[in-house]
């Protein structure tokens, strides 16, 4: 009995020390509403966009699969210090993204992280793709396909175009399994987007290689 009590006390102390252990998805959902995050982001799937007009009316990216897309550690930190991911403003070809995304304080950020991490897609399998520097992925990303035309990446001289979300630190932000799932099933996640569909152009092995390669960007 004494041993059990000690164990529980240790667990409690550890949880207190980490802080995040008390985070609560339901509380995060309330914060998400109260802070008006819902003005720009929707969190219930499936995707709602059916036309260009639907996509252009959006003020920010959909988050209904955020828990499959992002790495939890990154998300928790980003919500407290949201540096721009896109070089240009969402849905703009002319205006720079100067930042200004609302910040959340520690406890709220932890709750919202729990909430967003609960928004997942069954299309994303866990642990299938691991970060891996590989010549095939690099060749597809930088030469054979136009990925670098729109996405910033850690290149030697040319470091990528401006219109897509930056992938320069994608290895810290994105779940490698999501990168693969998104390439494979682009339209389910984003029915209307400025990125071409590569399913049917690239085979699954190539898509896996690209996902492994992008997951190494840090």
């Amino acid at each position, binding site marked *: 009995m004494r041993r059990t009590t000690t164990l529980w006390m240790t667990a409690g102390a550890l949880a207190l020390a980490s802080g995040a252990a008390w985070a609560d998805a339901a509380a995060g959902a309330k914060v998400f509403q109260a802070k008006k995050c819902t003005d720009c982001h929707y969190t219930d799937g499936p995707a709602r966009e059916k036309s*260009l007009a639907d996509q*252009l009316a959006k003020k920010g990216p959909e988050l209904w699969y955020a828990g499959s897309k992002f790495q939890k550690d990154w998300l928790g930190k980003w919500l407290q210090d949201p540096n721009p991911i896109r070089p240009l403003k969402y849905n703009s070809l002319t205006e720079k993204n100067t930042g200004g995304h609302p910040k959340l304080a520690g406890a709220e950020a932890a709750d919202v992280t729990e909430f967003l991490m609960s928004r997942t897609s069954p299309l994303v399998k866990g642990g299938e793709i691991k970060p891996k520097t590989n010549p095939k992925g690099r060749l597809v990303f930088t030469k054979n396909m136009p990925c670098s035309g729109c996405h910033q990446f850690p290149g030697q001289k040319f470091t990528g*175009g401006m219109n897509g979300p930056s992938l320069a630190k994608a290895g810290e932000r994105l779940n490698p399994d999501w990168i693969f799932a998104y390439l494979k099933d682009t339209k389910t996640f984003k029915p209307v987007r400025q990125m071409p569909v590569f399913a049917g152009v690239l085979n699954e092995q190539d898509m896996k290689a690209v996902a492994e390669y992008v997951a190494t960007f840090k």
Partner: protein
Amino acid sequence: MRTLFHAAALFLAAGLAVAPAFAADGEQLYKFYCAQCHGLQGKGDGPNVVKDFPVDPRNFTRADEMNKLSDADIRNVILDGGPVANKSPMMPPWGKTLAKDEVDALVKHLRVLCKCKGKS
């Protein structure tokens, strides 16, 4: 019965009048998909074209260059990407993304931008 007939005729006419609104809008498609590299005015200067961009995206306002291409040439590059015409893979294949009527609308819009008819 006659009223019903008139109502049906009116319904049909309204439907026909509305129909073009559902047709692919070449300018809107261009601004969404193509302008990111080719520029909103078609001059090949979209926001992706940063320093060290490996290729100069085509300037669609150059009638002399655009006249060397037939509509089918343009359609093929949109569908299969630059390499199909020995051009850069920076021009993606849009064949799995765009519907046939959307590609047709884009070809038409490029002819508006170049103010040219192209090789027949």
